[in-house]
């Protein structure tokens, strides 16, 4: 009984999988958001779990009630399985479990491909982890302590750490990846609509591990451009001030 049910489930699963492959083909060229793909895969896998769990639970409850001892001193009436039955009860379930495993593995792999294959025109931001904050480098010398990105464009983060291992946890986007000293890792996400959320550090990094987080804002393109130019302006001003200060310092020093 549990065998047959699972067989049906797996057949259904295989059908689903082939359907999904067709779907993936139909949408080549379009960017598939890893976030949506995660939610989708999670729902499918959850069904698989509920069905397996349900079958085992129902069978267990039935057996536990049905085979209570009817009288004190009663013993079980089962006999050891003969060879054929023993083999059948080993090989058939093994085959079913393996089928389910490969079904799940295939599903997981296709999602993994989406998660790891960065679209060509992705915007790149360099992220560096410190105890206990993230630093974002937008290129052109612009750095900031929050991640601001334009919507409608895939974003790839090139990540490393300056001290201990951190992990970049984009909860709302269903993504995370470790940041390690001496290694460069990456992670991409696709903000399709404006969203203000946060990134949290999810690899234990010390006393303030729980306080290592910052805002992640996906904003319309125009707003992003305005934000970026403001940053650029501020940076130029700061540089100007710095060079003036340096000049002043140079003038002062010989006097000492």
């Amino acid at each position, binding site marked *: 009984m549990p065998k047959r049910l699972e067989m049906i489930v797996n057949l259904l699963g295989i059908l689903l999988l082939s359907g999904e492959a067709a779907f993936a083909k139909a949408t080549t060229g379009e960017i598939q958001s890893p976030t949506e793909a995660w939610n989708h895969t999670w729902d499918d896998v959850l069904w698989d779990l509920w069905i397996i769990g349900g079958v085992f639970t129902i069978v267990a409850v039935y057996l536990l009630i049905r085979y209570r001892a009817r009288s004190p001193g009663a013993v079980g009436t089962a006999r050891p399985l003969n060879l054929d039955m023993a083999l059948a009860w080993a090989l058939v379930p093994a085959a079913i479990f393996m089928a*389910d495993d490969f079904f799940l593995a295939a599903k997981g792999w296709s*999602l993994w491909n989406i998660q790891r294959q960065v679209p060509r025109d992705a915007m790149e931001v360099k992220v560096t982890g410190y105890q206990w904050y993230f630093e974002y480098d937008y290129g052109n010398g612009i750095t900031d302590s929050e991640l601001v990105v334009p919507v409608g464009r895939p974003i790839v983060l090139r990540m490393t750490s300056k001290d201990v291992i951190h992990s970049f946890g984009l909860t709302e986007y269903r993504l995370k990846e*470790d940041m390690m000293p001496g290694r460069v890792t990456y992670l991409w996400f696709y903000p399709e609509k404006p969203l203000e959320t946060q990134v949290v550090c999810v690899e234990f990094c010390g006393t303030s591990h729980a306080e290592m987080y910052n805002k992640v804002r996906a904003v319309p393109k125009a707003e992003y451009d305005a934000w970026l130019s403001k940053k650029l302006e501020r940076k130029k001003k700061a540089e100007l001030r710095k060079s003036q200060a340096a000049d002043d310092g140079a003038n002062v020093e010989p006097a000492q």
Partner: protein
Amino acid sequence: MTTATEFAPAPRRSGIKEWIFTTDHKRIGILYLVGAMAAFVVAGIMGLGIRIEQMSPGESGLINYFVGDFAQTMTTGAAYNAALYFHGAAMILAFLIPALTGFAANYLVPLMIGAPDVAFPRINALSLWLFYAAILVALLTFVIPDKPDIMWTGYPPYSITTSANTAFYVFTVHLIGFASILGAVNFLITIIYMRAPGMGWNKMNMFVWTTFGAFVIQIVFVPVLAAAVTLLLLDKYVGTGFFDPTRGGDVLLYQNLFWFYSHPAVYVIFLPAIGLLFDIIATQAKNYIFNYKAAVYGGILGIVVITGEVWVHHLYIAGMPNWISIGMMVTTLLISVPVGLILISLWGTLYKGAITYNVSMWYAVVCLFLILAGGLTGIPLAITSLTVHLSETSFVHAHFHFIMGLMATFAVFAAVYHWFPKMTGRSADIPIAKIAFWFTVIGSQVTFLPLFLIGIKGMPRRYWDYAMFPEFEPYHLIATFGSALVAVGVTLMIVGWIYAAFRGPKVSTNPWNSKSLEWTHTESPPGPGNFQRPVRVDESWTPYNYN
């Protein structure tokens, strides 16, 4: 048959000395249980502290008291991390592994195979006292000012750059590891060479088989962990650069070495726990083990073979090469085959049985559902891409608590109740045990089910504060309430055990009418040398032959 009282451990000269210098596997087993339960209680109190701190965002300051920082010199984060370190390290290294491969294996294996003792009784005693030394080193956490805060995983570079004490972590691992290797040598040889005449491999109790599997894993993999933490020690205190990337080290290598042992360690816990369940359930259902050979050769040995090839599922988000991640996803998922065979065998053992229920069996029944819940929630965590979101969340935390924190722990409790008459001649199945059971079981579900839910939504692990996720507060509140129920349950249970050991109702030598050697061929508790006559079993005997 002699009555139980005649063989009760009658102190000859000095009671304490008898126990300290004992080489008797039964006493060593009981001492393991005492030590493991002590560690369980302290680590459990830390767990309670963790839950209290997480009850609401922001700091409560209470966690400092839990770790012995009464002067409040530590920050909440530091105190919380110390509590978390102790909880994890002690529960795994000083409770689960010693309770299952120390207490249960020591007490039951020689009795189940009809041997007078283990192969090397003195080495057995040595490994017991190494275990106690490890507990003492672990307990020093509460005394020293620089409490270890590196979690039980101890990932570098943090474990090297932290100002806290990494050495005590390393020493605890060394001592437990050494004790484990000695125990493994001892038990493997005992099982291979000391079975009663006539007891072929296919007639061994399931618990003996699972212990065999667990110790093969221990002996092969423990040295790797010991080596990894030793390198950590050298990096931190001698100044080598084994894990320092600027000096040619690699931070990921430690994680690989660590999980190369520590994932198999999960099966060192899982296998004996399952073995105990098999023996309890077969005894209470008065039935054959369903498809014994499939469970043993497919299930137990299957796990032993696969377990060394799955560790990368702990490193899915660490930027490992794709093909390793995908390959290990497949091997990890394939663990469902041996585990599935074991589950079918467990379920089938109930089929056509004559089940009688007692506290021990109740715990065993709960374990059946815990294996399901814990095992099935492991499936998304085996899938590389789903783990990208789920890893390091309280989903993972709840998953391994279901398997190790609840299933394996309840299996230990069930075993204590089941073999209590064997150890003491008295029954622990008294009313207080039943009350304790309900508190513990309901409390544990109230604690961990909310954590699954917020884990899916992304609640990170190892957070003492979650200011960025205020919406999770109700869940944490419920979980903390559940942990209080567990605390009440466990307290009542231990009180019940202590009471029953001295005042519990006396029971016959074989109260469950088991067919296993430890019940049929010796007294309760067994005297020195276990059996009055050498045991020999005949052709038709199996420990599960009831009809």
